[in-house]
């Protein structure tokens, strides 16, 4: 265990926190760092600091993949006052290290690949210069970290071992089925409920990942780790509608791989 640096040392090296106005009542916060994984971890830490400190005037916090959007009451504070408060809070509390979150859980998400469930797989494979099998292998061999809960508590995960970036749809789909496994850039996301998305759809899980009648509605949270497994379409009916729980709580353990 290392001794934390004295507060004065922390204060002398404030992290590179960028604060950019996003309209009259919002501020976009990003940490300047060359390493994407560090930016994501720091964004999670920054979120925890702001939820703890609750700077005066802050109304709402929206987590992004590598950023935080703070919406505020523009009659209480200005962009500049709020940015200063946040910088002081960060300097005082420190962003800490960027290692894995304490208590992170592991999830295994089974997915079915088919013409119906994977409409964008051929295009994604072509864009990456891989075969479709190699594209899926790149996904299933990756251990992904949930950075944030996006639309309707969708787990947004970074770290897919793709050799390049996957582009988004030219025109976002207005209705993507729940369970859809989607990719963009080198990130993946699972669609919890029907709705719009501009991400590329390459598979579908039979599991229910979010249910507002469960408490909490999801068993995952930012910092948890996820691995995908391609399963045979014949197993769909058996798994359909089961609520996603951490790997060690799932009945029968792993869902098994495609034979």
């Amino acid at each position, binding site marked *: 265990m290392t001794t934390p640096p004295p507060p004065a040392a922390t204060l002398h090296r404030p992290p590179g926190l960028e604060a950019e106005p996003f309209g009259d009542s919002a501020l976009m916060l990003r940490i300047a760092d060359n390493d994407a994984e560090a930016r994501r971890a720091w964004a999670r830490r920054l979120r925890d600091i702001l939820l703890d400190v609750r700077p005066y005037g802050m109304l709402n916090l929206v987590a992004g993949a590598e950023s935080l*959007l703070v919406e505020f009451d523009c009659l209480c504070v200005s962009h500049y006052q709020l940015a200063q408060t946040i910088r002081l809070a960060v300097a005082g509390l420190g962003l800490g290290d960027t290692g894995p979150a304490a208590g992170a859980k592991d999830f295994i998400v089974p997915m079915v690949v088919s013409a119906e469930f994977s409409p964008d797989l051929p295009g994604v494979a072509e864009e990456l210069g891989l075969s479709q099998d190699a594209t899926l292998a790149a996904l299933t061999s990756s251990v992904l970290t949930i950075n944030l809960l996006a639309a309707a508590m969708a787990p947004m995960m970074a770290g897919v071992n793709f050799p390049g970036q996957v582009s988004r749809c*030219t025109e976002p789909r*207005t209705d993507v089925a729940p369970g859809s496994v989607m990719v963009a850039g080198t990130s993946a996301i699972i669609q919890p409920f029907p709705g719009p998305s501009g991400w590329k759809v390459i598979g579908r899980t039979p599991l229910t990942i979010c249910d507002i009648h469960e408490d909490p509605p999801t068993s995952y949270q930012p910092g948890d780790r996820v691995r995908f497994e391609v399963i045979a379409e014949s197993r769909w009916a058996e798994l359909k509608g089961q609520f996603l729980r951490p790997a060690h709580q799932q009945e029968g353990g792993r869902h098994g791989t495609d034979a």
Partner: protein
Amino acid sequence: MEPTREQDVTITISEPGWLSTFQDLGREDSEYLGVPCGGAADQLSAATANILVGNRRGAPLMEIMGGRFAFTASRDVFISVTGTPADVTVGGVPVAMWQPVCVPAKTCVIITNARDGMRNYLAFSGELDAPRFMGSAAPESRMGFPQQLAAGHKVGLDSRYHGFSQPYLGQPLFRLPVPVPDFSANLWTIDVVDGPETAGTPGIRELLSGSVYTVGPKSNHVGLRLNGPVIHPEGLGEIISHGVPIGAFEIPHGDELIILGRSRTLTAGYPIVAVAAKASLPLLGQARPGRKMTFRWLTNEAAVERWREQQRLLTALEDRVQSLFAAVGLPLHEAPGSSPPDVRAA
């Protein structure tokens, strides 16, 4: 008149209109969990409706989107209707919008023929028994919380209102200083401020302020999709998914302009070329398909001043309601000064 105890009222919806739901000003502390704040698209009209019946601004109310909405109540109720101009009758007699209205028990209230804008808000003195998700009655239909009102639906109301009359007229006339928005212009002008990619999109300022845009049919609570000229910024590179403020103007790869609403999600990586001024959001929340609009650029400072003025008028109304209702014995469902300076409201 002594404030009296609450009593149970049953409101029976006989005609639900095209789409009517429970509503409020939206969820707090839900966005970082991926649940949009949601809430009334026209926050100003919704907050005003509640203020006019002595409720807190964020109390549950009903949002009516078109068609013919009708209800009766088992006891006397005290209501207000705000939002876009519509015909409101109580027992067949026309009554004013944007003022409190006394409704006798078992008398049919009809709201119909909404024009110009898209939404009406119906508030009841008291607390509506509306289901909540994450502390709010606002619909989150995508997650299985639609909150839709149907014909035959019976809604509970806890109210301390026991009827009110003044000696000379049957229907009391309230003349409260209500800031009523004007939805009648053929071309709406929406104030906007710079977005993060405004500077990186040369020509966008002149284009937005010099063109007319039409709200398209695919618009909803997630966003208004506008038809009109756009410019695609070049060389911005990959945009990492990030949070976007309500009212952000996005240009997707296709030729349309999207203005994000209160049920927006993270941006799908599209550039944000402008952001609606906070004071213009209520008007945007009334825009229906076919609505024509153009845009006017403001500095952030000017946008904050517009919002300050809008809030000043709302607070002045709140003060008048508090003193009037206290003087004549109408129920106030929130003690004056007990609320934090709310902030998101309206």
